[in-house]
């Protein structure tokens, strides 16, 4: 609970400078390990509180970034604890690298709302703010949980579940033998454990290697494509990706579920989500699709609203307009290749204050302008992605690393000739770490696995 925590505390955007905040009893030790001051003789541990220092962040011998470091000793800090703020170059990549270095050197990633929680628990916020603090914790955790689950969909969660399952089986086997040595023997079992552990460690290493390349985690600007049926949403996705990903037909309602893809525009990762067209419908399956579309739009960082210029705005567009309120939106005036039934000005009027870009997927027109607009929004800071997504990803990564370390200890223990009951302890720690990602606790799982797989007891 009184661990030292760290997080990116500026917006996750390309704008300005990035701030990484470290708080907790080890904050000074952490910065000491990774910071080399511009003036070599300076000792960061003995500088006065509330002072700023110029220098570099190092990961071992590798320079990570040129930074300013603000040293603030407790209790006169936001959290009331020793706090260090690192001002690094703006840009998601550099912020992430600095944070990763901090995490590698003794800090843990902050839980959602944790800085605020500590500020309150340490008496830095007054009583009247307690309710607000609790709300922050709840809402941020809810968001994090939601995004965590969404990121976990598909391959990552399946792979983790598989690893966990294999480890759990080994634990259950060992524990069964320990609980009922007269029924189950462990003779020579260390070798089996070592083999399983080696395989699982390789799998974890693969996961960690592939963690940041966007294939496993859904990190990026959540960009949701909205529009009434047959407005050309799927065509937009395909044109942007340059491939036939979505099934495009002229039958309204073809896309019943959502499609997700990742793409890169000028160094910015977009997490593109194509949705079912929004319209009043009685078709049950399509209805679910429409509900999902609304849901997705609610969680979007950016909405691309596709308007079909070849048909008048109708009641389906009326359904969409309220969703756009207060959101970051780019409106695409689509099908300029056909004869318009509604003018750009009329659309602009209807969607104010959002920008409108005329495009044609058939003629491949207007996409450059779209990309420029997205880039501008991002670098001006008006568009950023929600940092909870990043936070949960860091937490997942931390958990994977912890599981890997625990498995390393199993191998070491086996080499030292430690008995199986000791090896089981580290196997269990590995399982517990993985369970933090999948939201499962270990203890009951072990007991259930023992009883379901092994015949023990008299």
């Amino acid at each position, binding site marked *: *609970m*009184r661990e030292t925590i760290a997080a990116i505390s500026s917006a996750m955007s390309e704008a300005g400078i990035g701030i990484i905040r470290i708080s907790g009893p080890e904050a000074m030790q952490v910065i000491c390990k990774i910071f080399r001051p511009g003036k070599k003789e300076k000792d960061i541990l003995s500088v006065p509180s509330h002072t700023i220092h110029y220098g570099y962040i190092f990961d071992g011998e590798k320079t990570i970034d040129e930074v300013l470091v603000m040293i603030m000793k407790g209790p006169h800090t936001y959290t009331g604890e020793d706090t260090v703020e690192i001002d690094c170059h703006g840009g998601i990549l550099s912020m992430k690298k600095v944070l990763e270095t901090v995490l590698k050197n003794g800090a843990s990633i902050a*839980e*959602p*709302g*944790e800085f605020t*929680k500590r500020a*309150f*628990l340490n008496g830095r916020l007054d*009583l009247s703010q*307690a*309710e607000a*603090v*609790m*709300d922050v*914790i*709840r809402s941020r*955790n*809810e968001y994090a*949980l939601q995004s965590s689950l969404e990121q976990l969909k598909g391959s990552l969660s399946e792979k983790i579940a598989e690893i966990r399952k294999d480890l759990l089986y080994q*634990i259950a086997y060992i*524990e069964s033998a*320990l*609980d*009922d*040595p*007269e*029924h189950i023997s*462990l003779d020579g079992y260390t070798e089996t454990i070592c083999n399983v552990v080696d395989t699982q460690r390789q799998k974890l290493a693969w996961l960690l290697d592939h963690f940041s390349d966007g294939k496993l985690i859904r990190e990026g600007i959540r960009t949701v494509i909205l529009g009434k049926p047959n407005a050309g949403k799927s065509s937009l996705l395909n044109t942007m990706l340059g491939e036939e990903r979505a099934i495009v037909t002229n039958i309204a309602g073809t896309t019943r579920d959502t499609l997700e893809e990742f793409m890169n525009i000028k160094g910015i990762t977009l997490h593109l989500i194509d949705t079912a067209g929004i319209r009043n419908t009685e078709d049950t399956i399509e209805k679910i699709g429409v509900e999902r579309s609304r849901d997705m739009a609610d969680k979007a960082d950016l909405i691309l609203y596709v308007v079909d210029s070849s048909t008048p705005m109708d009641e389906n567009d009326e359904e969409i307009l309220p969703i756009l309120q207060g959101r970051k939106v780019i409106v695409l005036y689509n099908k300029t290749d056909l004869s318009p039934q509604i003018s750009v000005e009329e659309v602009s009027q209807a969607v104010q204050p959002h920008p409108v870009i005329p495009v044609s997927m058939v003629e491949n027109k207007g996409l450059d302008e779209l990309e420029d607009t997205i880039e501008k929004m991002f670098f001006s800071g008006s568009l950023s992605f929600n940092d909870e997504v990043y936070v949960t990803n860091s937490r997942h990564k931390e958990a994977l690393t912890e599981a890997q370390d625990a498995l390393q200890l199993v191998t070491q*223990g086996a080499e*030292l*000739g*430690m*008995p*199986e*009951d*000791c090896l*089981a*302890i580290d196997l269990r720690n590995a399982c517990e770490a993985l369970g933090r990602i999948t939201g499962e*606790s270990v*203890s*009951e799982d*072990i*007991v259930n696995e*023992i*009883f379901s797989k092994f*015949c*023990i*007891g*008299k």
Partner: protein
Amino acid sequence: MTEKKITENYDIVVVGAGHAGCEAALAGARLGLQVILFTVSAESIALMPCNPNIGGTSKGHLVRELDALGGEMGKNIDKTFLQSRMLNKSKGPAVHSLRAQADKQAYTNAMRRTLEENENITIRQGEVASLIVENGQIRGVTTYSGAVYHSKAVILCTGTYLKARCIYGDVSYPTGPNGLQAANYLTDSLLSLGIRMLRFKTGTPARVAGNTLDYSKMEEQKGDVPVVPFSFSTDPKDVQIPQRSCYLTYTTEKTHEIIRANLVRSPLFSGTIEGTGPRYCPSIEDKVVRFAEKNRHQVFVEPEGNYTNEMYLSGMSSSLPEDVQFEMYHSVPGLEHAKIVKNAYAIEYDCIDARQLYPTLEFRKIQGLFSAGQFNGSSGYEEAAAQGLIAGINASMKILGKEPLVLDRSEAYIGVLIDDLVTKENREPYRMMTSRAEYRLLLRQDNADLRLREKGYRVGLVDEETYQKVCRKEELIRQETERLEHTYIGNTEEVQKFLIEKESTPLKSGITLSELVKRPELTYSSLAVLDKERPVLSDDVCEQVEINVKYEGYITRQKKQVEQFKKLEIKKIPADINYDDVGSLRLEARQKLKEYQPVSIGQASRISGVSPADISVLLVYMEQYGRRHRDE
């Protein structure tokens, strides 16, 4: 005419004289309180109605811990065992477990004698029918015959007797175990007090006449030599006795065929049995169904005592009809001509949902009412005894106005047992298992005295001399462990020769003795030849030193985990907390917290459905609450 009834006053009423009740009564009496101990039959005190052993994996730990705290079970089995073995000896010290075969009658007699010799205990045969409660405070009990016993505390240890029913096939007797009278009235009294009841089931195998078995078809299993006593107070010299053997045989395909052919006649399948049985003690029919791929199951044939030739058929409990049992047992090699003395049966009984208890084992709703043992939804003699001791201590502490004794998960298996019972939803009789103890490297059976003697001493169950002895032991261990860390061994010819002999890598430079002890091929005792200044130390001290050094890595890491664990454990939740005031809790968490009323943040965090975010919210709320109360 006025009705005349017996009315007596005691400090503590203990209901039930099984393993829980005996420990509870002795704890109260030894702490100077007047105790009356009720039993449906004075001949069935500390009865072992099922398996004839004490200890076993993780249960052995419970007995050791109970002994260190000042309980009786360890001493009693040391006086009455027939055979003793240390299980898991080839594995790490954390899972070594002592198990003894008991002479059941001798065990009962010895415990009865100990109770009778304590002048603060009154043994009373009779059935307690209802509780006297006034304004949420227990005042005593009344018996079926109408007698009234006033008391300051009541400890319920009714075991498997409440509305008990014994079943095999379509035969169902309304009796407790072993044909003893059931207790049929107390459940209604408990229900009327608003206590939630559950119905659990357990079972026991048949007993056969030992002189009708063919042991030549079985594998003999002898006891360990030398015998390690259970109790830290027993002189090892006193337990080196001639031991009885157990025998191992196996079920056959034929056994399984008989069972499969008659499954439809099992009361489990017909729905006669409603209670939930333990997964740990599956009946033989259960095993045959669930593990169909196994073509045989072990059957341990164990003596019930020296007073009888009855043998217990461990591994073959059943509730199949009598005729099927007859056929089934006779299909096992060695049992072809066995005379069955007692049928196998399943037993159903009422117990409580133990989440209604504080970790002190006192009812949340009723002050002064405690409970222990199978009544709390556990299974096993040792689990019962451990709870009985804690309930006895805490009932006494309450009467004496002292701090209760609550062991946490990092201090003892007893702590794990009770925390699980009062925190988790329990759907079957709860059995202790080593996998349930997160910090088991620290909770070894060999160091139970070092862990718990002091607590027993503070409570008043361990005397000054015993306590001082353990303090001295602790100091010697510390000194010797430290000496090993600071004693360097050079790479002399003698050392290298010794290492080569032991197939250990020769030294490049000097190394500490602890580093050498850590090598898998070396031990503390084998290194004595190189260790010129080694003091003369007792075996138990040497054992601790060796474990401390060899497993240092694991021990250190587990100690760190314990530190984290304790931080949440010491944050107590105020009893008058209103979870409806904590606006930001998720609905599920709020309901669970209201239902369980955890005593600490640590306990709250172990309730399923309470997330880490809810714990954070709770911490903030408690800080707010605390500040408000400080301000007032």
